[in-house]
């Protein structure tokens, strides 16, 4: 089976995000970028499926040349091939635009796909749109937020988290699966893997190669403003006898915080 994993480069979740208010973008200088952790589960799952049932794992990322390093990481983890779908646009936060690029690449260049794996969302933008949109554009079944995946022949079963319960979904292949934490424990790259990855080329596919025109991928979404979340207000301390304090607390939760 040909398994494709879609991955994205994101700022390390521990980094301090600075905003350029003039351009309405995040200042990339000084940031460390990593492979989106949810995508890491997707890559790991693809590698495990290949190890169990054979096939090929191909990793794709839409982005600038800076994304090469995360594709190299996927190769070092054990992916067979990696391609960069080159997009020089800064972050557009437009899930549909990204989904169109991915769907087109799959149709045009990789139409032999058997399974498409995504992270359930990318940390940072957190829209969780792209997997579903790609599935819709390609007319494929989709299961999101998956914590367990089994593939047999041309059919699959996935467990997904829903409010207060676990849903078990059967589907036919090809399909889109988005990975949730808990699906697996991603492996570390080994030195041998890094050395193998070093020798592998990462071919670049341009929008021209994919027959995508400017108007096809013009963002439909405009970012009006980016702001840091407001600093947390200091907590209130109620200094009373326990009985009175509890009463005041309930009053506060009712009337001020309005949570009960």
């Amino acid at each position: 089976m040909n398994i494709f994993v879609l991955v994205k480069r994101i700022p390390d979740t521990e980094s301090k995000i600075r905003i350029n208010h003039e351009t309405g973008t995040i200042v990339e200088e000084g940031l460390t970028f990593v492979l989106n952790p949810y995508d890491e589960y997707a890559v790991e799952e693809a590698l495990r499926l290949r190890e169990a049932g054979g096939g090929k794992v191909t990793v794709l990322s839409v982005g600038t040349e800076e994304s090469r390093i995360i594709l190299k990481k996927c190769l070092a983890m054990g992916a067979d091939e990696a391609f960069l779908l080159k997009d020089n646009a800064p972050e557009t936060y437009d899930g549909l635009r990204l989904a169109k690029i991915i769907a087109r690449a799959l149709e045009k260049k990789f139409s032999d796909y058997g399974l498409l794996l995504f992270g359930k969302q990318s940390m940072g933008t957190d829209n969780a749109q792209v997997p579903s949109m790609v599935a819709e554009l390609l007319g494929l079944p989709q299961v999101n937020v998956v914590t367990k995946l089994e593939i047999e022949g041309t059919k699959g079963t996935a467990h997904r988290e829903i409010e207060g319960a676990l849903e078990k979904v059967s589907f036919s292949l090809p399909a889109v699966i988005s990975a949730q934490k808990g699906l697996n424990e991603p492996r570390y790259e080994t030195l041998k893997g890094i050395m193998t990855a070093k020798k592998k080329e990462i071919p670049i596919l341009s929008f021209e190669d994919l027959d995508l025109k400017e108007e096809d991928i013009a963002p439909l979404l405009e970012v009006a403003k980016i702001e840091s979340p407001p600093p947390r207000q200091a907590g209130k301390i109620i200094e009373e006898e326990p009985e009175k304090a509890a009463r005041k607390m309930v009053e506060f939760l009712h009337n001020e915080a309005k949570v009960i």
Partner: protein
Amino acid sequence: MNFELTEDQKLLKAMVRDFAQKEIEPNVKILEDTHEFPREFLDKLGKLGILGMTIPSEYGGTKTDYISLILALEEIARASPSLAVIVSVHCSLFCYSIMKFGNKAQKKKYLPKAAKGEMLGAFSLTEPGAGSDAKNLKTKSIREGNFYILNGTKSWVSTGSEADASIIFASTEIKPGVKKLNAFIVEKNFPGLLASKIEEKMGLHSSLTAEYVLEDCQVPAENLLGEEGKGAAVAFHCLDGSRIGIAAQAVGLADKAIEEGVKYAQQREAFGRKISEFQAIQFMIADMSTQRDAARLLTYKAADLIDKGKPYAKESSMAKLFASEAANKIAYQALQIHGGYGYSKEFLIEQLYRDARAFSIYEGTSEIQRLVISRYLLEEC
């Protein structure tokens, strides 16, 4: 001139940091408190290929450039300085000396296991009465038939009690009155080798440091490493390279100490403000990071010289001297930022401060490094 790491160097650095943060860091305090040898993490590092970085693939290793080894040591040291010294001794002294001076049979016998961490190595030069003064070793080796018989005491052997094999240096009389050194590969179960007394050290508690007592220790003649009487060359050549590993360990520790100091300064309030808003603290942070960067550059420079096949002994000493002293200053200042809490075992900086103290002593004290460096200058001019 290019100050940028290559793609695979960045990848390796990120991988080791990820592993160290997730796997090692959460366990460091308990390992240090209980003086427990980090066997579990060495096994894992072996599986990742980190223990074979000085061994080529024909002997089962994962040989990389020296910069990559330095990056790995730096990242391991950020999490556990103890683990970093164990890995450094294994890779840059044990494995490297066999790779460089061993014959084919020795390489085939020891390196494949060492590369995977199935065999852990130590390096034993120092004696109770001779550290840097290596030419005056008291341990003797005498050839008897197919064996050498070793007698004497070796001290301060990092990993000594845990190692499966060690490079042990002993003197030999090649002519009446003319003493030279021999280097041997000594397996832990060779008759007559006893790893005794674990030193109670100030820091680096999970790196166990032992004394070796050699009592008529029988070492097969085929385990002589390098030529008869040429052990000094083995010792000095290997130490020239491994000093860069100690420099990297110092850089890693310094980096962690700065992180701890900055984090604390941004949390702690005094006189109604975060202490990071006081210039006294800001200046310390500026000095610490400048020192660390200078140390890192000297360290990478020395490693780069190895990769380029150029002489590196002077630069290796400079990197070791500067980085180990910088790590001490940085740990001191980062602890100072913590105030009274820095003196408490509850904060990591207390451990880092103690660990750093070893750096300007082992593998050649700062004073010895200064001697080495000045000799180059005095002879050059």
